């Protein structure tokens, strides 16, 4: 569906233009800078909300169309389904010789992510309102970061995806290294950047290999498929065999381009089997997959509040999103082979992350490790490879994004006034900051999966999906066979919930309840209206989605179905 008005481009370019204008402004005009920043972020949010609601109104039709396609059962059903799920499409040829086009669109998974980014952008600017040191540069880099994140979510061309992926990483480094926590910022910023860059480079190599292999496929064995796709409208006239477009790579994947046996001369090896772990884990590093999660807690803690919010809230979802798109969607057979053992890593994320969070003394580290733990559930949902688990993963991406942004907002508000993050030293803060206390409780209940909040709405399908998948997945290592292996994973992961409940309760009780030491914190006062807005803005979706999951569930289902259809599992 072609867009009449380039909404998605606007969403990407408004922050970029905003950033550029800010960089040219006089650094003394801080209020003007902040005003422009919030205007850009606010406008982006409104456009994101528009995209979300508009797509929501189309979801029923799209789902019906998907069902019809499945009924018809043509070849390349998955790719066609993927193409027809896209909305607000914009396509302009960019570097024709390399098959790169500026191709943007949203589908059922990216629309909620776009909305989430808008929310976190607005609240991030608002919570950074009082930053006085080099306000100009901060706001400019923050907006660039926001633009990069948006770009990844709406990209339908792999090059565009990478372009914005890197665009998002570069301001992260500057933001953390310059405005972060003095003790840790340079180390954390460098570690974060190196980890993510290395991961993305590995994935990039994989993606380029995919493009080349797809090209070879279309020119030889898949020539007919290619011609058919052009005829039926899946590919457009100017699409070449060598293309970075997601649609054409998906077409190749669905028709077996990556499943040719004997790849690299190894018996039984296919392209997908070899490259999937590299691509998936390369991107999943940004999602904090064990054992490459190490950059995340330090990154969270060292970053200024707004950056922590966008880091945990959105950036980690970028990793999961890209891992899904480039890994699972484009190398589905590889996914089927490798996800069973990758899911074990995600289990370690969930349980180990929770245990570590329990041990932390620093308020922000608790939240940081809790992010690592909850992101494990996202990847676990992907591993279930059925509509229930994968939609649950999508729900968790949104729910956790809002929840962790809320958490970091609360932590930031406490830290700004108390100037300490040491949990044992804090206490009784709900008496002086009731809004923050209640918001933290809402976030806490969400994170432990309490029914009535969005965390439950996300975790329930993930676990259910894993149960359902359990019949089909047998772990085979050599001659060791473990059936119903996913059920065991689920049961252990469910224990992770108990630990989550424990540390959330402990932190809440220690920091917010108990006695407030007036002598130690003489000038801690309540939060401003601006900050209350942030808390309500981020907390409301947690409750809304928790009470009425139909707000987002059909949309995510529509987004995940094409991925499963490509595999033939829809």
């Amino acid at each position, binding site marked *: 569906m072609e867009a009449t008005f380039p909404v998605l481009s606007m969403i990407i370019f408004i922050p970029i233009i905003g950033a550029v204008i800010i960089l040219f402004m006089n650094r003394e005009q801080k209020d003007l800078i902040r005003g422009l920043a919030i205007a850009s972020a606010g406008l982006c949010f409104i456009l994101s909300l528009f995209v979300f609601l508009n797509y929501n109104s189309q979801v029923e039709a799209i789902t019906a169309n998907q069902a019809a396609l499945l009924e018809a059962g043509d070849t390349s059903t998955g790719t066609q389904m993927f193409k027809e799920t896209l909305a607000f499409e914009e396509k302009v040829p960019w570097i024709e010789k390399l098959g790169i086009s500026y191709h943007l669109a949203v589908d059922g998974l990216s629309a909620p992510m776009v909305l989430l980014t808008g929310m976190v952008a607005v609240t991030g600017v608002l919570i950074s309102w009082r930053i006085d040191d080099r306000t100009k540069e901060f706001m400019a880099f923050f907006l660039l970061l926001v633009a990069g994140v948006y770009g990844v979510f709406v990209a339908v061309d792999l090059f565009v995806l990478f372009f914005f992926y890197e665009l998002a990483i570069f301001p992260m480094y500057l933001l953390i290294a310059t405005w972060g926590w003095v003790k840790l910022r340079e180390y954390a910023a460098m570690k974060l950047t190196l980890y993510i860059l290395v991961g993305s480079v590995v994935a990039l190599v994989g993606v380029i290999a995919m493009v080349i292999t797809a090209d070879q496929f279309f020119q030889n064995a898949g020539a007919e498929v290619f011609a058919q796709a052009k005829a039926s409208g899946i590919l457009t006239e100017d699409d070449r065999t060598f293309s970075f477009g997601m649609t054409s790579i998906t077409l190749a994947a669905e028709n077996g381009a990556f499943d040719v046996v004997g790849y690299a001369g190894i018996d039984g090896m296919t392209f997908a089997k070899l490259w999937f772990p590299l691509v998936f884990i390369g991107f999943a590093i940004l999602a904090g997959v064990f054992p490459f999660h190490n950059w995340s807690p330090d990154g969270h803690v060292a970053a200024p509040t707004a950056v922590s919010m966008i880091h945990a809230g959105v950036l980690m979802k970028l990793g999961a999103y890209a891992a899904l798109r480039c890994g699972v969607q484009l190398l589905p057979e590889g996914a089927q082979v490798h996800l069973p053992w990758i899911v074990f890593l995600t289990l370690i994320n969930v349980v180990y992350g929770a245990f570590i969070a329990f041990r932390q003394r620093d308020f922000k580290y608790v939240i940081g490790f809790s992010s690592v733990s909850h992101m494990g559930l996202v990847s676990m949902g992907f591993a279930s490879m059925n509509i*229930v688990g994968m939609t*649950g993963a999508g729900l968790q991406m949104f729910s956790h994004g809002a929840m962790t942004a809320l958490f970091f907002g609360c932590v930031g508000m406490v830290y700004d006034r108390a100037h300490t993050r040491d949990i044992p030293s804090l206490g009784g803060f709900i008496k002086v900051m009731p809004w923050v206390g209640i918001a933290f409780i809402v976030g806490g209940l969400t994170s432990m999966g309490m*029914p*009535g909040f969005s965390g*439950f709405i996300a975790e329930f399908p993930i676990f*259910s999906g894993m*149960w359902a998948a359990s019949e089909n997945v047998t772990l085979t290592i050599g001659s060791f066979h473990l059936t119903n292996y996913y059920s065991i994973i689920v049961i252990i992961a469910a224990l992770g*919930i*108990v630990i989550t409940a424990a540390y959330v309760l402990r932190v809440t009780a220690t920091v917010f309840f108990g006695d407030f030491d007036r002598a130690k914190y003489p000038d801690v006062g309540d939060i401003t209206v601006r900050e209350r807005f942030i808390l309500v803005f981020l907390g409301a979706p947690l409750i809304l989605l928790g009470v009425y999951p139909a707000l987002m569930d059909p949309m995510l289902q529509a987004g995940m179905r094409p991925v499963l259809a490509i595999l033939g599992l829809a």
Partner: protein
Amino acid sequence: MNFDVLSFLVFAPAVAGIIVLLLPQQKWLARFAALGAATLIGGVAAAVFFAYNAAAPDFQMVIQSQWFPLLNADWHIGVDGISASMVLLTGLLTPLAILISFEIEDRVNTHMALILFFASGLFGVFVAMDMMVFFLFYELTLVPMFFIINQWGGPNRKYASTKFFIYSLGGSLGMLLAVQLVGLTAGTFSIPELAQIWPNFTGANGTFLGIPIQTVKGLAFLGFFIAFCIKVPVWPFHTWLPDAHSEAPTAGSMLLAGVMLKLGAYGFLRLVIPLFPDVWIADLNILGFVTNWSTVFAFLAMMGVVFGAFAAFGQTDIKRLVAYSSVNHMGFVAMGLAVAALTYGQAWRDGTSEHMQSAILATNGAVLQMFNHGLTSAGMFLLAGAIYHKTHTRDMTQYGGLWVRAPIYGGIFIFMSMASLGLPGLNGFVSEFLVVRGSWSVFTALTIVSMIGLLFTGGYILKGIRAVLHGPFNMHWKDTNLEIDLREFIAIAPLLVLILLTGLAPNWILNVINASVTHVLTTAHLVAGGM
């Protein structure tokens, strides 16, 4: 009716709670706003009860709309006779609890808001016809109650509230897994549909995920069984209750004992009995005894009756006495439910059961006991709270001879105690008699022992009366105003009226309950299948 009254009942208290939270921090404004909202909602709840047509005993006022499409879980709510009586109970007790909470001076807005949020959760459970909706509200009620106990409770509140929360949450982890298992395999979370599908589910050639189907069903059953046993509470899963009840502020105790415990019993009746008829009557081998889960449940119920009574007898803390009396009284509920479970299972398997008439009596008794105990325990906690508010101690040895200075309070105290004891003419007698009469032919030995337990019920009640009201007057209180005040009297008056009315003419509620209980039990054989 066009107006979705049940959704209103579920959400209006929460909305009212948010409004109360946002009101200016003026105590009387918050108190009356909350009271007004709760009374209005209570009126609607009563209207729902009286609008229920006992001649058409199935679910009424049903709403089913899209909620969580991914899981095939709908916003599916409705009431039948059993839920209507529970809705009435909740609607009645909430404004009374708020009225009693006028004595709270600290953070009034938040306290009132939490009571209202709690009421929302309770309504949600009772009107749920979808297992996900049920589970959601079941768990959600833990949160406001935790905060009510933790923030406004007695000296040992931190321990009591944490134990209550973790015990209940941990216990329902099994239920969470069971809910997932049942809902996903059956492909629906709708309780009426599940009652049709799940008992006959045999999996793929007798196994599910490679495990024999009987084992799977047994595990799912246990998940629900343990979670609900904790809530009712059934001995020996009751140990969270004495602390939680005694440390909670008066309103918290009233709602906790008055309504929250009934969530567990309701869960048994609505979910466990219809979904697992085969498990309830399947042979169970324990240490050489061949028995079944219904008998085990009846045994545990009997233990609750007896041990609850003994434990109550030994208390010096008035609130702990009433708390253990809850274990004692809910034991009768459990006994009635055990009979229902056995009979439903037999009717499902064989088309009919020899115990059908007894089961109908026993189950009527159990549900009526749920309602009655709601009234009497709320009343007892109200009275305990009243005297605590004046004397600032819960230690009955410190009371003594209060009758002299508080005759009206004393009279009400005796009235309420007699209701709790099961004096004929008051409500407790009707329900306990029905349960005993119904379970006599099914679990004779256990019933006999329970009736001996009843003796001790009389024992602790009379002991309580003596300790509080009779004997020499403790001069320590000579300058304290001990008499019940007008506000407390207004709060307890509706309970007194209903206790007397239900005792003398129980049909006003028994008709409604009976219609649905009979319907549930006698349609068991219609659930296609049998073993």
